[in-house]
């Protein structure tokens, strides 16, 4: 319910700006997306509910041609996974976007920092007394990301997209704790 409301809000915002006259020069891209994540190996057959999140970012172009783009994006976001954890993150990805008419597909790979806060309390042991004290459970993790998506570009350069994303918490026991996410969002161009 929350996800569909946020998604509707994001799409409405995109349409509203899309209906305004196109700028003569493209402005700074602003990307907003909402996502549903779960702790899981990559799978479509057993998708499970997990947490919800929001991501805001921008992107830069190494190559920007009418039919394709080589891009690097930078994003910051937050997700909350009930009973398990919440996370703030900043990450960057590089990738390639191919246009066919107004439609496009893209794929990106990258990494970033994840400030993780488990829901369950943690404790540290005072070695001198052997007593345990409640301690901050927050911790920084490396956050590898891999994403691929499809979308549509409007004449005014605004984009709508849906993506399948994988990200991880590293290090975690056997190397990485994997998450997968489905996101939907829009990219607007703020006037310069």
């Amino acid at each position: 319910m929350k996800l569909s409301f946020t998604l509707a809000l994001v799409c409405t915002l995109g349409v509203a700006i899309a209906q305004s006259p196109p700028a003569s020069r493209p402005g700074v891209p602003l990307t907003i997306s909402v996502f549903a994540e779960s702790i899981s190996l990559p799978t479509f057959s057993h998708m499970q509910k997990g947490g919800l999140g929001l991501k805001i970012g921008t992107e830069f172009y190494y190559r920007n041609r009418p039919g394709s783009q080589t891009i690097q994006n930078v994003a910051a976001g937050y997700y909350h996974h009930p009973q398990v954890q919440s996370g703030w993150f900043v990450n960057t990805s590089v990738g390639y976007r191919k246009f066919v008419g107004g439609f496009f597909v893209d794929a990106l790979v990258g990494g970033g920092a994840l400030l993780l806060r488990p829901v369950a309390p943690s404790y540290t042991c005072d070695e001198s007394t052997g007593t345990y004290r409640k301690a901050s459970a927050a911790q920084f993790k490396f956050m590898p990301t891999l994403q691929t998506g499809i979308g549509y570009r409007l004449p005014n350069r605004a984009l709508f997209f849906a993506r399948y994303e994988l990200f991880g918490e590293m290090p975690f026991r056997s190397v990485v704790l994997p998450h997968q996410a489905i996101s939907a969002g829009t990219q607007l161009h703020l006037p310069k």
Partner: protein
Amino acid sequence: MKTKQIIHLAAFLGLALAGCQESQVAPDTTETDSPYRDHPKNDQYQAALSTFNKQWRQPGNILLLKRAGEPLWTGAVGKSDLERQRNLQISDPFRAGSITKTFVAVAIMKLQEEGKLQLENTLGELLPEMLQHIAGADRITLWQMLSHTSGIFDPVNDDAQYQLDLLNNPAKRLAMSTRDILARYVYGRKLQFEPGERFGYSNTNYWLLGMILEKKSEKRLQAVLDELVFQPADLHQTYFEPRDDRNVVRGYADFYTNGKLMDVSLLDRADSEGRASGGLITTAGDLLRFSDALFGGKIVSAASLKAMMTLPSIRQGTTEYGLGLDSYTSPLGVAWGHNGNLLGVDANWFYFPDRKATFVLFGNNGGGADKSFVNKLLEKEL
């Protein structure tokens, strides 16, 4: 513009971190009161337990020692609940993990004695619907399931997605029935090896044995265990059915390998409660009563006990696992019992027939520990 954004982001993350400062909790001032203070070796045993507790970073431990010719001793050290700083008591209930399997095996042996089933029965004969779902169900015997030589797939240890799903949504796992779990993670999987070929520990064997007990008895597993095991062994602080019992000792683990112990009780409960592979809640005292009753021939017949303590012949490798009873060789002779490991629990119960000695060791850090100090205590001259 970019600099401002970075400053705002840094301030944002700083605020988020500030909300994660360490906090103190009010200590529980209840003293650990031991009725074994007058035991001749109380100080020696208590010191050994305290050393073990600190060495292996266990929030709390309970140790029960029973030796021939010496009074029973039970001691506790540390905390049962770090949030409330509650001192661990010797009578506190623990999650027993896989020690549950011995109880289930005993109930199966009782039904065999009553003529309701035979160890040579196949899974398909006892649960015909499994013929469609479990490979080899037409030839896997009860004996092979009890001794973990069936080859049936074990998602608990061999399926990463099983563990990730537990972590993703513990409440959902807690609500799943054994049949739901079998359908989601086991049905349709290939056998790991041909039945009887070798030993391969699989929790699935005991999920299925629990279903067989329920079907043959036409009762829920809690009622079956109560009637066939708890009552005959005179256990009053042992139960199996799911309960939101706040008195159960909480479990901890260095989950993120960051040197901090995280409370993983929610995960342990979701992964074990109501499951024939590990759902038992019990106390050290009740486990001793169970042990005495089992090895004293008060619950099952001598023939059944002998079968439980006989290692199956397998075609590859070796096994130290009988029928619901594990064994290991020690300087005190062969020990029989079981251990139980959950993420936040390390439970051990073993009986040494040659010395007529028993120990129960509970710990609420599931990270593992060297328990050989117990053998040394039991070895010492009286």
